[in-house]
């Protein structure tokens, strides 16, 4: 029943993100009617690159939104303010905190994965010349894997910060990470941001396994840390 509760709690956020993705897809049809037109001579590959980067941004927003608000709303509601809402009712149920967090985080991960898969699939459809089945599968898989790093970090932040601060903190973390990856080659080699970036993987190159694996490991570590934080938290 925890899955049922998690779904009821997060479904509108999931639908909202789906709607946001839909608006991005429909934007090319709408924009010309508002007078927005690309200058002549822009190569189709450049346009696709822009679509891809837009999708990556959407992955990050979706992951932060679904993790932050989803996990935080009841599981670690108002982490520092002392107001716990229905969390006291949840904690009075005969269920472990680890299970509470893993179910909520698990559902959010599934929702994030579905959103990223849909968005990545759409992005591939816009690619000039299309993509082979293997290329498409690899593209979607790395998008999901790297987004999970973003998602899990947001879950962890949701366990220690109030909702208001989570997004700022997540943004700061990723800016710091971006600076690190531009300075240190090793960080760049394993970076989820590089994993999601088109520049590291123009579909014809070999699959960038290092950032994919590193992202999944990082996500696992963040989730374990979240469980530990929640188990030690006092309400």
């Amino acid at each position: 029943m925890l899955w049922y509760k998690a779904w009821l709690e997060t479904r509108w956020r999931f639908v909202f993100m789906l709607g946001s993705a839909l608006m991005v897809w429909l934007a090319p049809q709408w924009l010309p009617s508002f007078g927005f037109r690309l200058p002549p001579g822009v190569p189709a590959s450049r346009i696709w690159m822009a679509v891809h980067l837009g999708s990556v941004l959407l992955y990050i927003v979706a992951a932060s939104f679904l993790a932050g608000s989803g996990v935080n709303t009841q599981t670690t509601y108002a982490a520092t303010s002392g107001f716990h809402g229905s969390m006291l009712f949840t904690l009075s149920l005969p269920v472990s905190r680890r299970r509470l967090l893993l179910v909520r985080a698990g559902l959010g991960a599934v929702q994030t994965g579905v959103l990223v898969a849909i968005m990545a699939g759409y992005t591939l459809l816009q690619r000039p010349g299309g993509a082979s089945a293997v290329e498409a599968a690899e593209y979607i898989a790395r998008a999901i894997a790297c987004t999970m790093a973003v998602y899990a970090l947001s879950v962890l932040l949701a366990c220690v910060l109030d909702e208001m601060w989570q997004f700022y903190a997540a943004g700061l973390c990723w800016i710091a990470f971006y600076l690190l990856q531009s300075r240190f080659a090793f960080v760049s080699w394993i970076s989820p941001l590089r994993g999601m970036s088109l520049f590291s993987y123009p579909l014809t190159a070999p699959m960038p396994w290092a950032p994919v694996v590193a992202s999944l490991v990082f996500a696992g570590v963040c989730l374990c840390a979240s469980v530990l934080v929640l188990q030690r938290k006092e309400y």
Partner: protein
Amino acid sequence: MNDIIIAADGLSKSYEGKPALRSLRLEVPRGSICGFLGRNGAGKTTTLKLLLGMLRRDAGSIRLFGEPVDSEASSIAARRRLGFVSEDKDLYPFMTVEQTIRFTRPFFPGWRRDLEEKYLDLFQLPRKKAVPKLSRGMRTQLMLLLAMARGAELLLMDEPTSGLDPAMTEDVLRILAGLAASEGTTIFFSSHQLAEVEQICDRVCIIDQGQVVIDGMLDDLKSEYRRILLVFDGVPPRELASLAGVDHLRQRGRTASLLAHGDVDGLVDRARELRPSSVEVRPVTLKELFLDHVRGE
């Protein structure tokens, strides 16, 4: 079967170095309705949260249903047998009444559909109504339903009647008394309302500054404690305070008011030796007991 449902010994808890509970000792027998009284910040909610495993204790031990609660697993096992009503009565705002019941039911193997239906009808709770649209009274009723239908042996309640109007308060108290009588449920609830505690409780525990100052059967306490009013011709003598059996002494002008327990007759005899012009012995109310112990008046 263990006759002590709640047993806490040496329970201590501090928040950022400030003690909230100091070696609290508490015992609640099976089937009793125990009122847990104290001023704001006395440690009532902290005690309830420690019993439920929402807080970690600094020291001491807790036994629920006769079993030690010293790990998450033992806390979960205990929570399977109890119900909790929080002060704010917050339930999930994204669920309806029916969804809340459907969600809670599977956690409790002993869930009783007959009680669920009984209390749904009794409270006339609208099944399809979203929780945020329920009044505070209805949310209290829904929480009571969730606690009772699970077949809880113990109800822990943090100020269950706070924010309720007098009629609703009366209904809730009547239901609790009925529950203890019909199902044998043990009820342990914190409150500021002395009148409601006096109305339904057979046992009282008063806590002040993190320590239990009075604990016992309400009737026993009322028969054990007496107010002795002494009027003197001049200022009451200082020796009054040192008489054995005097819990609290209050002086105003020529009058001394003693809260006493134990051998009250012997105390009165000793007080007479101090030559008061009049002596009056009165029974005490719970309010007097409470105020004398938490304010030291």
